[in-house]
């Protein structure tokens, strides 16, 4: 009889202890990880049509900053963030809308009238009037709002803003 056992009593107890320990560890550890990363799993959508103002108030040929705020509830508090886009009317019908968020690391670019460039204050990125990269570290041109992301209703300019 004794010879038919392939595993000793001691090893069996060790194995069971290890297995039960692993189950308990997972039962405690997984909820703990879930607790820590919970906010990352609940990113709220902020998509919405945002009005930028009357189209005719934007001067033709000159990039103009239009700012707006979006609020989200983070945890127990409402957070208000401000965003901006540069509106450039090249003619009565053509409008170019560029995000002011630098494509390098997310700082806000400014329009430099003297140089006729968008310049990022953080790492000196330079973009042309149409958003193309002229110099510095950015990997791609400034993001554009085009096509169905833009609409004009009753003379008011709106963009479809995507949060997150």
């Amino acid at each position, binding site marked *: 009889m004794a010879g038919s056992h392939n595993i000793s009593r001691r090893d069996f107890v060790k194995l069971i202890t290890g297995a039960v320990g692993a189950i308990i560890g997972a039962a405690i550890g997984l909820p703990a990880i*879930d*607790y820590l990363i919970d906010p990352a799993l609940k990113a709220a959508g902020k998509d919405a049509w945002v009005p930028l103002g009357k189209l005719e108030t934007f001067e033709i040929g000159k990039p103009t900053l239009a700012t707006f705020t979006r609020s989200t509830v983070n945890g127990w508090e409402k957070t208000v963030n401000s965003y901006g886009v540069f509106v450039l009317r090249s003619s009565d019908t053509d409008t170019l809308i560029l995000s002011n968020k630098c494509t390098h690391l997310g700082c806000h670019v400014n329009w430099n009238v003297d140089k006729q460039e968008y310049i990022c204050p953080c790492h000196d990125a330079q973009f042309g009037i149409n958003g193309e990269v002229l110099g510095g570290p950015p990997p791609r041109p400034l993001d554009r709002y085009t096509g169905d992301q833009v609409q004009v209703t009753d003379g008011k300019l709106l963009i479809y803003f995507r949060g997150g």
Partner: protein
Amino acid sequence: MWKKLFAWLDERLALNELYKATLDRPEPKGNWWNTLGSASLFLFLLQGVTGIFLSVYYTPSPDHAFDSIQYIMNGVAFGWLIRGIHHWGATLMVLVVFIHMLRVFVTASYKYPRELTWLIGVGLLLCTLGMGFTGYLLPWDQKAYWATTVATSIAGSVPIIGSFIMKALRGGTDLSALTLSRFFAAHIWMLPAVLAGLIGVHLFLIIKHGESEFPGKDD
């Protein structure tokens, strides 16, 4: 391979000696009352871990303390569980530490050569009560607010220096944001640091002197 690695580590870290001194030391005849010290240590570690987790979301300011706890309870995954363990673990820890003290008293384990182990244990009991006292304010609800008002008033009834003690505890004449933040600091930094240090000495003394025999009929 593993034996070689272990031998290398053991030679430098004295793992075997540590194991023998802590987990394989001679014990008097088994008695469940003698496990209460280990139970207290376990509860301390449990409170430490759950407390660290709570501090990820809790905010010690009057504007946000209550809301942040509501968020932990209703918004965060398993927040109710973490806070529940911390809440009930606190009550249980006071109870277990107190019964542990009673056991040591009844079995006369505080006598030579363990007088200092006992005195440090008194410090540990007071620190545990201090943790309960400071932690009770942190939810900043009506119960917490008035309990702390009453308890600090009791401290204020000490002759002559009473009003100074009360102001020092409250960080002013009334309960305020200062009270909440100093109770928070005491709860998560000062008292745990003192507790951890005293626990270290307490454990060292227990390992050094071994556990006392259960008193026999002749004692």
